[in-house]
């Protein structure tokens, strides 16, 4: 009997050499005349251990990592195929604290299975949600999603059930389901991990959404920077069609749903939902005025559900186990789990899915292990390039939408970027304005012009020119951006800029906080 070995096909694992390690293992096994079955799985999300090789043994799956090509002959010599010790041994993978302490609902399968193997997906609880949905009235599907308390995981945290209900109650011959897979926020990679590591769960979630609101066509708008996710999605969609999980007669129900992946082209603004729909229509990604809401007049002017990858990928488990099951995780108005992404200067970067309610400090130190450089953590940016910078004094904030709003910060898409004490916060504030200038769609003046004036003013402050005059000017400009911009790009760029200024005034050449005001 051949031994089964897993080597991840996740692009972060590949970026650290997983493809070469997989090839080396296959080569070494053949050279030694040992029969193995090599499976490329998704990543467990323990990225400091990648490439993480797992061997199936009688006791469970034994991990070895990080494995480099030069380790491979030694692993065979040490009988890793029987799970024997080696200096790369991690023991039973499911027993690692980092994994054991998590509550993986959306990420339940990721890292365990071959992402594009449909049979394995079905064996591991896949398509149970769809099976339930097929026997339900559309109103009841929407009710489960509403009851679950799921809020949009893309960043805006709008209740998903309410959005679906609006589309359901807007009659039209054609409606659309659009998946926002334009994951452009720095420090985030959970969408990518889902699409590469469990693409069927997204396909299933979109199909359920289609049944719920009466939409027959879905589009996944994927950023072009994710070639591996593109390949995995296309393979999975093809297999779903072959097995009648997509197409004109889903599982002999007479229901229809078609799905197609469309690629973006490197514009951050196309992660904004109205800009995304313009782009899908083949236009420049200019932001639209709202109202009308996309739920009433969205893609091609039709009622459209537009949701983030994680929101849609959370739907199958809600329909499988019921809205109440999902709702029982979390706190306050933040229900369910949030896949948090620990990134940047952190010792143990990775994917941590947990119910809302943990503190930022627990994530940074208990899971993250502090900074990678070993220096003190000085600032963290939560929620991508439009999220606030938080100082150490705010690390006890709970991971909860309202708790973050209470300190003028956002959870966004759950990305946390860590900086040690070598960071220059004035430079980071300048970068935020520069990024806004580069990525502005140009439709509204505060964002288009304000961002450029913004980094010019910060340049002046950094160079010590008229600081007492320029600080109020910067604040005034931020006020215009906050209140006068059409969308979140201009409207939220002041979050990182002002939080940097308020919490780290010394980096702007201001000695005390009173003068910064």
């Amino acid at each position, binding site marked *: 009997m051949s031994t089964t070995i897993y080597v991840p096909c996740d692009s972060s694992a590949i*970026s650290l050499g997983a493809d070469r390690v997989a090839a080396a293992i296959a080569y070494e096994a053949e050279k030694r005349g040992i029969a193995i079955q090599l499976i490329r799985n998704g990543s467990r999300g323990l990225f400091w251990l990648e490439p993480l090789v797992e061997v199936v043994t009688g006791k469970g799956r034994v991990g070895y990592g990080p494995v480099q090509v030069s380790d491979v002959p030694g692993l065979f010599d040490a009988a890793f195929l029987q799970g024997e010790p080696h200096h790369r041994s991690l023991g039973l993978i499911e027993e690692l604290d980092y994994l054991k302490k998590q509550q993986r609902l959306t990420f339940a399968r990721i890292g365990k299975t071959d992402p594009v193997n449909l049979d394995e997906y079905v064996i591991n609880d896949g398509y149970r949600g769809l099976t339930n949905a097929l026997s339900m009235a559309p109103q009841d599907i929407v009710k489960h999603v509403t009851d679950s308390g799921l809020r949009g995981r893309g960043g805006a945290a709008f209740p998903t059930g309410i959005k679906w209900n609006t589309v359901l109650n807007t009659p039209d011959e054609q409606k659309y389901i659009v998946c926002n897979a334009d994951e452009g926020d720095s420090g985030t*990679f959970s969408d990518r991990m889902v699409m590469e590591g469990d693409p069927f769960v997204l396909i299933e979630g979109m199909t359920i959404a289609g049944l719920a609101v009466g939409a027959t066509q879905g589009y996944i708008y994927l950023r072009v*920077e994710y*070639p591996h996710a593109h390949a995995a999605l296309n393979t999975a969609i093809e297999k779903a069609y072959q097995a009648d999980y997509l197409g004109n007669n889903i599982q002999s129900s007479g229901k229809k749903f078609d799905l197609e992946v469309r690629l*973006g082209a490197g*514009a951050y603004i196309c992660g904004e939902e109205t800009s995304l729909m313009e782009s899908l229509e083949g236009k420049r990604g200019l932001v639209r005025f709202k109202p009308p809401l996309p739920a009433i007049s969205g893609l091609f002017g039709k009622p459209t559900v537009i949701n983030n990858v994680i929101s849609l990928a959370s739907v199958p488990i809600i329909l499988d186990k019921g809205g109440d099951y999902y709702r029982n995780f979390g706190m306050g108005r933040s229900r369910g789990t949030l896949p948090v992404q620990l990134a940047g*200067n952190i010792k143990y970067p990775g994917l941590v899915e947990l119910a809302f309610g943990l503190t930022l400090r627990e994530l940074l130190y208990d899971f993250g292990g502090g900074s990678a450089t070993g220096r003190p953590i000085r600032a963290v940016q939560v929620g991508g390039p439009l999220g606030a910078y938080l100082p150490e004094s705010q690390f006890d904030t709970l991971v909860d939408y309202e708790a973050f709003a209470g300190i003028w910060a956002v959870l966004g898409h759950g990305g946390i970027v860590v*900086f040690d004490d070598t960071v220059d916060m004035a430079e980071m504030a300048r970068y935020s304005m520069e990024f806004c200038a580069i*990525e502005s769609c140009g439709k509204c003046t505060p964002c288009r012009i304000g961002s450029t004036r913004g980094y010019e003013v910060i340049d002046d402050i950094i160079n010590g020119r008229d600081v007492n005059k320029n600080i109020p000017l910067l604040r005034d400009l931020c006020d215009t951006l906050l209140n006068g911009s059409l969308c979140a790009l201009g409207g939220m760029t002041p979050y990182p800029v002002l939080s940097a200024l308020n919490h780290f005034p010394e980096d702007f050449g201001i000695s005390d906080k009173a003068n910064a005001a």
Partner: protein
Amino acid sequence: MTEPGIMLSTVQDITTALKDKPGALLPILHGVQDALGYIPVDSIPHIAKALNLSRAEVHGVISFYHYFRDTPPGKHTIHLCRAESCQSRGSKQLENHVKNKLAIDFHETTPDGKFSLEPVYCLGNCACSPAMQIGNEIYGRVSPDLFDNAINELRELA
């Protein structure tokens, strides 16, 4: 540069195959850039005509998106991440190293036509910062040495 005749027949094949999709312009532009490496200015009238758009509209879309280019790229395009996570792990120093090593700035191509350098704002590899992409190959925890090795390997292959 592509021969004008080959270029036009490629553009026409792609346009004919995709023009009836809803919102066909981006898929067509991706198709052309995948096939030719860039979107030649001479292809714009053909694309515009097939989609019943003005040339200005097609040009406007090409120029809006950072990924589309209307000049031929080098043999290998390097996308270097400039975003916050990579900055927290030294991407600014890496950026200086890369620019010095290749003796070009962003949006430029080396005189020998081997490498083009483009900035990118996140590759989703933030757990392994700093990150870069060369062609479809993604690299994590990129140090100046790792960059030099990758470039030297590609130089030898070429």
